[in-house]
C-alpha cells in the first residue's frame, strides 16, 4: 500500500509537469470561470444585503397637512396602531425638523441654494410605515386606505421605486450569473477535454497497463487526482480573485461618496470565505468528475 501511494503521487506529479501548457490552460480556465461565478455570487449577496436594507426601510409615507388638528392625527395614529402587528410591521413619526434635516443632509448635501430656500416650517411632518407584506398590491390597498383620511396631505409609495431598482439589479445579477455559468460549463468541458486528451495521448500506455494486469483503479486514480489538482488550483486562484475584488470594491466604496447608495453592496469577509469554500468545492468536483468521465472511455477492460 505504501508503494502504491508512492506510485500514485509520483505519476500524478509527472503527468502534471509533462503536460505543463495543458495544465496551465485548464487551471486558467477554471480560474476565470470560477472567479466570474464567485463575482456573480458576491453580487447576489450584495443585492440581497442591499434590498434587505431597503426592505427594512420606509415602504410608504403618509404626509400630513401642516394645518391638521391633533384629533385628526390621533385618529390616523390609532388606525396605524390597530394594524400592528397585522398588515403593518412598524411605523415612525417624522417631525418637521427631522424632515428638514433629512432633506438638507440626505437629498441635497452640496446644494445649499436649494436647501436654503426650505425651512422646517414648510416641510410637512409624516408617518413612515413599514408593511409586513411586501407584495405591491397589498401595500397599495393599505396605502390607499389612508389617502382620504382628513389631515392627510398625500400618501406616496416607495414600493414602485424599490421594485424598479430591484429589477435593475436583478438584471445585472442575472447577466453576471449566466456568464459565470457559461464559463463554468466551458471550464468543465475543458477540464474534461484536458484529461481526455491526456488519456488519448496515453491510450497506448493505458492499453499496456491493462495488458500487464493493472486494475482499473490503479490506472484511474492518478488521472483523477490530476484533474482534481487542476480544479483546485484554478479554484484557489478564483477564490483569491473574488476575495481581492471584494476588498478593492469595499475600499473603493468607502473612499468615494458618489455611489454611497452602493455601500450596502459590500459583502463582509465571512460571506466571502463561504463563497471561496464553495468555489474550491466546485473546482475539485469539476476536476474529479471531468477526469472520471474522460477516463471511463478507455477503461472497459
Amino acid at each position, binding site marked *: 500500500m505504501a*508503494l502504491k501511494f508512492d506510485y500514485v503521487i509520483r505519476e500524478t506529479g509527472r503527468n502534471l509537469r509533462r503536460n505543463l501548457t495543458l495544465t496551465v490552460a485548464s487551471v486558467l480556465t477554471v480560474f476565470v470561470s470560477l472567479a466570474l461565478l464567485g463575482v456573480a455570487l458576491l453580487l447576489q449577496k450584495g443585492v440581497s444585503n442591499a434590498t434587505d436594507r431597503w426592505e427594512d426601510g420606509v415602504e410608504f409615507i403618509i404626509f400630513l397637512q401642516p394645518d391638521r388638528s391633533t384629533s385628526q392625527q390621533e385618529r390616523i395614529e390609532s388606525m396605524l396602531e390597530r394594524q400592528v402587528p397585522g398588515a403593518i410591521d412598524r411605523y415612525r413619526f417624522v417631525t418637521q425638523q427631522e424632515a428638514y434635516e433629512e432633506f438638507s443632509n440626505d437629498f441635497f448635501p452640496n446644494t445649499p441654494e436649494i436647501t436654503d430656500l426650505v425651512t422646517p416650517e414648510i416641510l410637512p411632518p409624516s408617518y413612515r410605515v413599514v408593511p409586513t407584506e411586501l407584495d405591491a398590491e397589498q401595500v397599495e390597498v393599505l396605502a390607499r386606505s389612508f389617502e382620504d383620511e382628513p389631515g392627510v396631505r398625500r400618501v406616496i409609495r416607495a414600493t414602485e421605486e424599490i421594485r424598479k431598482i430591484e429589477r435593475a439589479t436583478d438584471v445585472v445579477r442575472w447577466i453576471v450569473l449566466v456568464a459565470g455559468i457559461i464559463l463554468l460549463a466551458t471550464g468543465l468541458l475543458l477540464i474534461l477535454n484536458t484529461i481526455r486528451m491526456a488519456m488519448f495521448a496515453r491510450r497506448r500506455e493505458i492499453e499496456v497497463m*491493462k495488458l500487464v494486469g493493472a486494475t482499473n483503479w490503479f490506472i484511474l486514480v492518478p488521472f483523477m487526482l490530476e484533474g482534481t489538482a487542476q480544479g483546485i488550483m484554478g479554484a484557489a486562484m478564483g477564490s483569491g480573485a473574488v476575495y481581492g475584488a471584494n476588498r478593492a470594491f469595499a475600499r473603493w466604496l468607502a473612499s468615494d461618496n458618489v455611489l454611497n447608495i452602493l455601500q450596502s453592496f459590500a459583502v463582509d469577509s465571512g460571506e466571502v470565505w463561504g463563497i471561496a469554500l464553495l468555489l474550491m468545492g466546485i473546482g475539485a468536483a469539476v476536476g474529479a468528475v471531468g477526469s472520471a468521465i474522460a477516463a471511463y472511455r478507455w477503461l472497459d*477492460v
Partner: protein
Amino acid sequence: MIKLESVTKVYKGEVLALHEASCDIQKGEFVFLVGPSGSGKSTFLRLLNKEEDPDKGQIFVAGKDIGRLSRWRVPYLRRNIGSIFQDFKLLPNKTVAQNVAFALEVIGRPKHVVKTQVPAILELVGLQKKMHNLPHELSGGEQQRVSIARAFVNRPLILLADEPTGNLDPATSVGIMRLLDRINKTGTTVVMATHDRGIVDTMRRRVIELDRGQIVRDQVRGVY
C-alpha cells in the same frame, strides 16, 4: 493448463480469424504456433489473454472458463500470464528499467523486490547497458528484448510469445530461445508464435499449425 473447445473468432462479421479450433496444452509444455501470415496466430494468443473474446466456444486457462470471468477479475488473470507482443507495446515515456519495473509495480510487489529483480532480468537479456534509455533510443532487436524481459519478470505461470525473435539476428535468437527453454524448464507453460523455421526445427517441440484460422496440424515433436 490451457484448453480451447471449438473456438471461433470472426472479425467484423466477415474475417474468419479462427475456426472451430480445439486443443489442450498441459502445464509445463512448450508449444510452437506456426502458419502463414494472417492465419490467426496472434488472434489465438490474444484470446488466451482475454484481449479479445471468442464468438463461439470456450477457453479454459488454469482450469477456469475465462469467458465467465467477471470484468474486474481480468487483471488478475493477466497477472498469471506474461505476454511478448508482436509490436512490443513498450511505454514510450518510461526508460527500459521503468518499463520492466512497471510490470512488478502493477501487481504490488514491494520496492526492494523491484530493485533487485529488474537489473537481474535485464542482464539476462543483455541490456544492462541500456537500462536508462527510452524505447525510441533502442534498435528493433533491443526493444524486443525489453518486451521479453517485461514478460518474464514476474515469473508467470504461462508465457505467450508472439514472434519474439522476429527482429533478432540468428545469434541473439539462439540466446533468447535458450532463455525461453530455461524458463520452460522451471514449469512455465510457453506458447510461441513464430515464422523462424530454423528455431522450430532445432528445438523439436510440440507444433500447432494454423491455416486460414483452422488447426491443420498438431504434432508432439514437430518441425516447421
